[in-house]
């Protein structure tokens, strides 16, 4: 996962140094994921608003019935008034409070962001404060709601050139994230935040636990694979981690292909049927060699590198 991300998104990686002096890479979320997150959130808000309205209408209907039974107009009128006030408050809260509520939580992400695996963070590496979250969400109006309404108006053509000019002007805000390296929205800019990937990886099995990895004989063929210095010197860290991925995925075709490639490279005669045992043994011994090099300060990035 991180190897993949490193390949495709090295441009989006930013080094973050913790107060302990440990640097780790934050990956700026890509714009597609953010758009998807926004759409999910808007759908959720829409559903909440419609549901609240329906429930209030249902309650209002009940009150109206009650009113007919009791024959009193006054109390029912007040109750209906109260419901209307609740409706106004709820709509205001959904529109403005939804993003605040979720982004202030410990995950720093709305449900949409969580589903797309992203979150907000402070750009300078400090704490994410309430002020930042408020600031970045207050600008949603000009980034989202105004451009949409202006676009709808401008399409009708009633407002003429001025309407189109306004629509273009507002589109600049809506498309702001496309014009800068960190994909900042206008809101991110004034709040000092950004949106980053929030990776969630499971701890995988250690690789050197299996029988063959420890130099034992393969159950299938009874061979204990031992590789010489020259045979292990053929590859570097990049190939090692590719091999790790192949072993973890465990797809037979991939293993056969890699097995063949390695055998060709180190001048062995590729057999068939014992690929996994061969690859596990080769992986473990290659890693042992490279890691002992690391401890001495010698690293070999890939098969082209010397050492």
């Amino acid at each position, binding site marked *: 996962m991180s190897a993949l991300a490193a390949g495709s998104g090295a441009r989006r990686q930013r080094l973050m140094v913790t107060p302990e002096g440990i640097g*780790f890479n934050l990956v700026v979320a890509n714009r597609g994921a953010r758009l998807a997150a926004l759409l999910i959130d808007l759908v959720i808000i829409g559903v909440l608003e419609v549901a609240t309205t329906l429930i209030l209408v249902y309650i209002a209907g009940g009150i109206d019935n009650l009113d007919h039974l009791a024959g009193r107009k006054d109390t029912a009128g007040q109750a209906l*008034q109260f419901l209307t006030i609740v409706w106004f408050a709820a709509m205001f809260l959904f529109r403005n409070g939804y993003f605040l509520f979720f982004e202030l939580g410990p995950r720093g992400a709305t449900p949409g962001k969580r589903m797309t695996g992203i979150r907000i963070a402070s750009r300078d590496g400090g704490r994410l404060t*309430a002020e930042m979250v408020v600031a970045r969400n207050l600008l949603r109006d000009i980034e989202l709601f105004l451009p949409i309404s202006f676009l709808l108006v401008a399409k009708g053509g009633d407002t003429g050139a001025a309407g189109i000019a306004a629509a273009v002007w507002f589109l600049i805000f809506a498309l702001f994230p496309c014009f800068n390296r960190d994909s900042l929205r206008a809101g991110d800019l004034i*709040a*000092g935040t950004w949106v980053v990937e929030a990776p969630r990886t499971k701890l995988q099995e250690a690789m050197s636990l299996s029988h063959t990895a420890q130099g034992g004989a393969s159950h299938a063929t009874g061979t204990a694979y031992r590789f010489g210095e020259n045979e292990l010197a053929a590859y570097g860290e990049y190939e090692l981690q590719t091999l*790790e991925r192949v072993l973890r995925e465990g797809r037979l075709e991939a293993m056969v292909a890699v097995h063949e490639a390695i055998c060709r490279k180190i001048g062995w005669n590729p057999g068939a049927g014992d690929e996994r045992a061969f690859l596990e043994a080769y992986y473990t011994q290659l890693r042992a060699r490279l890691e002992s090099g690391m401890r001495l300060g010698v690293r070999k990035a890939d098969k082209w590198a010397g050492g």
Partner: protein
Amino acid sequence: MAFADTGIAGLFGGRKAEVQDAAIAAAALRSDRFRQEREGDWQRLEAIVRRMEAGRMGKVPDEDLLALPVLYRTVASSLSVARETSLDAATLAYLEALVQRAWFLVYGPRTGFAAWLRRFLGGGWSAAVRAIWFDLLIALAVMVAGTVVGWLLVSSDPDWYFSLVPSQFADARVPGASHEALKATLFHQPGEHQEDALSVFAAYLFSNNAQVSILAFALGFAFGIPSLLLLVQNTGTLGAMLWLYHGQGLTLDFVGWLSVHGTTELFAILLAGASGLHVGRSIAFPGAKGTMQSIREAGQRAATVMTGVVLMLVVAAMLEGFARQLINNTEGRLTVGLSMLAIWLAYFFTFRRDPKVTA
């Protein structure tokens, strides 16, 4: 003898350690043994982080909360050791992600809502308002100018009234309306039942005004100019209506009617416009700091002010919905309106407590 051995070992929990030792011995690589010795800590941290992220703070035991910073540092040091000694890409990716998640929690916002509110009301808000004083002055000048322009436009040509005043207000309140008709919009008759739908109206006004002030703030991003235009447009309405009532000799009554909630509401709109302008100014003239830093600081200050603006608009809506109906004379209304103004001014400009000292 063998029986006794296992019995005692089981009693002291030695067997588990033995099994673990065996597993550690089993890994062929030194870096995997390093991992096996520590993965218990990693997984404990992951469990704590997962529970805290789910927001179930109550379900996280105290000892886990206390262990969080320690575990975080342990795992962070595991990560830096692993980076130098291990080539296991999956384990490195796991540790990176785990350290990042824990880092967000350890250095995340730790103030709860109550603590934040206390700091906000106890000095943070008024300090932010004072910090944008220059923008407040500009916005105030613009609002006064907007009112004057509205007045002048309508007095030169009453047709302007209909383009300045939204149709919802132009019911009885149109040019040419009689003294009595206009007076009736300000005061309700003794026997008249007038509280119907007024609180609904207040709720509507609140959400409308709040949206307008959020817009005024957001528009500040475009160098502040649209914020000012919005202020002019809104106060133009005020100027036009002021002219209308002035024509029938009802100026003071209108001011009284308006001031009950108007001092709070117009103040809130002033703050919103000024915060928008503050952000716009920090973009156009960042000063000695870098543009990004200047924008960031201005944005956070303005956001603090804006949070308060929403609160003020709630107060304004309540005053409008209730106080104005209960007080049916100009003197009483002016008293309420002016004392609200005095309270806000005193709170913002004389209430000085450094929020950092109290926090």
